[in-house]
């Protein structure tokens, strides 16, 4: 499945092999039905599909928020599909960054403290967390808004704070769940622009979305339907 020209001595940022996710019921619901996917380091890809296509389950499985029923999930070369809850927390703290549609910022904390929360469970002391947060906020263009609280920021600025929080621990993989879903079109464009800039700087970003326009603006599209990959733009280039 090494389809995007990954250097041979380098492992993919994300690799899913034959991943099945079934939810119990009568009959059981198969949300992911044998998914194989490899995302190289430094890629910017979209996982796109209508609701019910299995892309939310994909987000959870890729982000180690949920375990697959069977199959293998590797993040930065680490097999994570059968780790304990405790170990999975370590994976999320060190290897995965999340961006959510609803931002999920802590209302009582300033921008810099919200971003520093991205390192809270890494064991870094507060001073270092704040320093890294300031640098990262600067990187997403919010260097002038360090001490503003979420309610003093616009929607686009809030999403930038959330993106900075996802990046601050320098994860192997950033998962963005409908990152422009709560934003107007102009702000959406600027967030899209930011994703491209971060991609240019080398970040590995997977955007999960139902928005075809957003997906089409990204270098790679993986289209889901009924728990399977219906089409992957990487196949064409092969």
């Amino acid at each position: 499945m090494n389809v995007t020209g990954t250097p041979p001595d380098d492992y993919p940022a994300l690799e899913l092999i034959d991943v099945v996710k079934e939810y119990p019921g009568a009959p059981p619901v198969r949300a992911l039905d044998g998914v194989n996917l490899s995302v190289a380091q430094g890629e910017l890809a979209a996982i796109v599909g209508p609701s019910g296509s299995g892309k939310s389950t994909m987000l959870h499985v890729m982000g180690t928020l949920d375990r697959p029923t069977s199959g293998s999930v590797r993040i930065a070369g680490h097999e994570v599909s059968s780790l304990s809850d405790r170990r999975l927390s370590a994976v999320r703290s060190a290897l995965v960054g999340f961006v959510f549609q609803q931002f999920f910022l802590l209302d009582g904390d300033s921008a810099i403290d919200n971003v520093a929360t991205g390192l809270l469970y890494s064991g870094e002391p507060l001073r270092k967390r704040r320093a890294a947060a300031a640098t990262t906020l600067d990187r997403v263009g919010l260097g002038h808004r360090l001490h503003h609280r979420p309610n003093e920021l616009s929607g686009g600025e809030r999403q930038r704070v959330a993106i900075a929080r996802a990046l601050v621990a320098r994860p192997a993989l950033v998962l963005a769940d409908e990152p422009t879903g709560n934003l107007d079109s102009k702000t959406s464009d600027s967030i899209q622009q930011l994703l491209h800039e971060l991609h240019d700087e080398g970040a590995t970003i997977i955007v999960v979305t139902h928005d075809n326009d957003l997906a089409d603006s990204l270098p790679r599209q993986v289209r889901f339907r009924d728990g399977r990959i219906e089409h992957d733009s990487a196949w064409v280039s092969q």
Partner: protein
Amino acid sequence: MSTPHKLPRSSSFRVVDVIGTAAGGLGSRKLRTVLSALGITIGIGAMVAVLGLSRSGSAELEDRIAALGTNLLRVTAGQGFGGGDATLPEDAVAMISRIGPVESVSAVGTVDQSVLLNDLVNPNQTGGLSVKTAESNLVVALNGSVDVGRFLDDTTGTATTTVLGSVAAERLGVRDIDGTQVLIGGEWFTVVGVLNSFDDDTDDVDTSLFNDLDRAAFIGPDIAEALFETPRNPDTIYVRSNEAFIDDVIGVLPGTADPESPEEVEVVRPSDALEAQEAASSTFDNLFLGLGAVALLVGGIGIANVMVIAVIERRNEIGLRRALGATRAHIRRQFLLEALLLSALGGVAGVLLGAAVTALWADRQGWRVVIPPEAIGGGLIAAVLIGALAGLYPAVRAARLAPTEALRAS
């Protein structure tokens, strides 16, 4: 992004960060924090105040008992069967002095006259003051003290001189003794001394054990007999006894004081009255402590309630924290510590409130302020225990929430 990504064994949540996160959680919901801590504050405050006031009150009573001495007995004639005031036999003092363990005896008798500032005052307006005969050892026998001048002695006890009790002096407006005279039974008496209250440790004149003495003008028995034909029968005898034999002394006192009608003699140990007061106040303490405990329980339930609601409301925050790498234990710790901080906050405020109430009240009563350290320690420990109990279930619930469930849009 070609740096190799190492996978730590576990994420970590430093202790200072747990505290910071929990405090931040409370700080961003100030009104709710204050209101939910209030129950604990009231409960702990009530308990600390009850313990503090009871201890201050006890200290006050103990001081009075110590000043009084537990070896003092008061012998009175009581009420005769035929009604009217009975008196003790003339030789009662001499008889009582012969009881072995008795250390000192002093008698007070009633003079049926009034004391007035001058002859312009209506003789019927006595102002609640009385005239009594006293022996020269009265002040010493009662551990009393003289404010100005001196008490009656063998010389002044036979002259037209008087010594005023503290209340009597106040009512008559006598502040110094430079030749001041008062009118007793139509005769001018020179004031040679003013006494301090015999029950000096209480500001409240009405609860003074020696109310009657504080309101008296004392004259010698000889002059009373000479001028007013006052009989020499005492109506009250104060007896100091060797404390080890006090029960025996109490047993023989009636028969010794009045061999003909011992059943009419009343023997009272004044310190018993104070000890009874102390015992009575401790029954009220238990009542208030019980009420404090109820307030505390309600406060604890309030905290549990607020924390359960917080876990539901903050589902997304829990999901976010799990996504950022928090383990179940980290989530549990955060919420448990929030509950602990909440109740500790209430506890500290309660201790301060209780101490303040104690200090204010005790000060108003003129008591020594005693805030027992065990009330402070116990209050804080109780608060923390309640916080732990109240926070445990919500914290466990928060930790059990699956990340995917917690992240679902609300």
